[in-house]
């Protein structure tokens, strides 16, 4: 039983991070219909900025998180302005290729500055808590609390503020939103900033129990895509639920089936789902 609970906890940790990354991806997709392949690279840059702030500048963990969030949000907006905005009327294949270009560039730059070595990011929260037979590293609790806290904050932002409401309106109906006179540029920039910030904070939370290296975003971005396809591209609750599903599937599958192949689980799930239902699980019928 304890072993099972332990896996549930792992699943929750993974799932909350996946959800956070997928949220940014799904927001961007909802607004611009761009599958941003560079999102994983933004996540990676976030981890490096946090690492750099902590190790080289000697600042504390929370400041590092803020720095990472700010830098990556800015970078993300830059991508929108310089790349995706000029391509908004281009055939869909073009912005996918451009996103790949950004991804390659960011990875190469990071690798040039910091090398390809695997690094371990320090954290001030090294305690290990015990509840009954359960061992819980404090960082994991922080991840879960941080991720869900951020999701809650995002929810409030989208529901309670004007900009948030316009983001939702535009995600649901772009043409309509234009008619109502929404400043599409501002909304797009805001969305990219939020997505970048989520990715960077997610990276700062997750990196201490993982490793930091230039290719760290590859697997994650692919899983995030699986998640938003599962949850319906553009759907916010879908990204969170999908993230948890994949997180749990991986934790439990990795433990009970095969640890070697645990990374395949998400993709196998995707292949099965899309084979049966080509438009994903929770998509709305109307195009």
């Amino acid at each position, binding site marked *: 039983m304890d072993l099972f609970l332990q896996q549930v906890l792992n699943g929750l940790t993974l799932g909350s991070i996946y959800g956070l990354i997928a949220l940014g991806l799904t927001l961007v*997709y909802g607004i611009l*219909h761009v*599958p941003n*392949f560079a999102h994983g690279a933004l996540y990676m840059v976030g981890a490096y900025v946090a690492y750099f702030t902590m190790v080289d500048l000697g600042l504390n963990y929370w400041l590092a998180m803020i720095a990472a969030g700010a830098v990556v949000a800015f970078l993300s907006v830059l991508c929108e302005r*310089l*790349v995706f905005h*000029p*391509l908004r009327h*281009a*055939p*869909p*294949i*073009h*912005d*996918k*290729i*451009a996103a*790949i*270009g*950004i*991804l*390659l*560039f*960011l*990875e*190469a*730059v990071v*690798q*040039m500055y910091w090398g390809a070595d695997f690094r371990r990011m320090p954290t001030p929260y090294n305690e290990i808590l015990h509840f009954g037979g359960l061992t819980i590293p404090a960082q994991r609790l922080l991840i879960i609390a941080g991720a869900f806290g951020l999701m809650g904050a995002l929810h409030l932002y989208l529901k309670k503020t004007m900009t948030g409401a316009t983001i939702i309106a535009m995600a649901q109906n772009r043409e309509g939103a234009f008619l109502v006179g929404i400043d599409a540029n501002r909304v797009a920039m805001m969305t990219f900033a939020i997505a970048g910030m989520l990715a960077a904070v997610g990276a700062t939370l997750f990196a201490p129990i993982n490793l930091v290296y230039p290719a760290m975003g*590859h*697997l994650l971005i*692919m899983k995030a*895509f*699986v998640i938003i*396809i599962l949850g319906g*591209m553009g759907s916010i609750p879908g990204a969170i639920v999908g993230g948890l599903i994949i997180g749990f599937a991986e934790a439990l599958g990795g433990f009970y089936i095969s640890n*070697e*192949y645990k*990374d*395949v689980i998400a*993709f*196998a799930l*995707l*292949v099965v789902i*899309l*084979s049966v239902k*080509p*438009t*994903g699980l929770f998509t709305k019928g109307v195009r």
Partner: protein
Amino acid sequence: MDRLMNFLVSPVLKWALLVLAVVFPLISDNEYHIYVMATAFIWAIAVYGMNIITGYCGQLNLAHGGFFAIGAYVVAILTVDHEWAFWPAFIAAGLAGAIFGFLVGVVSLRLKEHYFAIFTLCVGFIIYLLLEKWEELTHGSLGIINIAPPEGFGLVDFTETVPFYYLVLAFLVLSVWLVSRLSRSLLGRTFLAIRISDDLAQSLGINLMRNKVLAFVLSTVYAASAGALYAGVVRFIGPAEADVVHTFDMITYLLVGGIGTLMGPLLGTLAITWLTQMLQSLEEYRMIIFGPMLVILVIFFPRGIVGGFLTWRGRRLANKASQQGQDGKSQTTVNTPSTPNADKQEAGNNA
């Protein structure tokens, strides 16, 4: 100027390129350069495959590198673990490309645009993971060494660079020839209609699945065959061959040369390969240049070198023809067989 332009699009250029390729080993005494050229040709073959599904048919396949690796691994496993000779293994690799391509295609091509790209990205990754983890079959992350080279039946020795160069060149010529046939044919036009829009193609009575799967299988056969040749020259392969970076490299080649054009894949591959060679020190960081280059290309020159040239020239010709048409008060250029009852129609219209 016009004469130069006409030369650049005439078949003469293609023959000139071919002659150049044939004499290249004779004028270059640097064996390493010949080797680089041969591997560039191999990649070009794979890029031609990518051009069929992505350039002509408009479906961004991000598993292309995976199929390249499948071809390489089929040759490696069959020649090393099962002691096959190269050529039967080469044919098996092509077949494997076709079979896996068909299976993946039937599932993935039902998906539209983004879904297809994401799905194939995942397929590519699954291929990579399987090659790395399935140790009994693939030797895992160690890779496979001592792959058999193509046998020359006592006539030539393909472990030598120059004979291998000509072998690859022959395959390249075959590949380009087939694509040139295809692109000019009704089938090529069918693929192009699908690239414009699925809905439009269907409204023109085109069976989407059948044509997309055909294009996809053709592309994976190209990729797998290129992979098989690659295994035959490098003779050592590992799971890294399936790394998605190779797919991204091929996209770069395709875009630089000109997506959906005939000579684009070759020119793009050669240009980038030699550029990388010249900037040797850059090898590891080449993406610092290539990444932004991809972005700039899709924003400003989405049709690459060849496509950009063709559009420019086509427009010039069209404008010139219109001018002549106006000057001479007659329609030149278009050899339109007139409809017999066209006059009657016009008359009816005015009535």
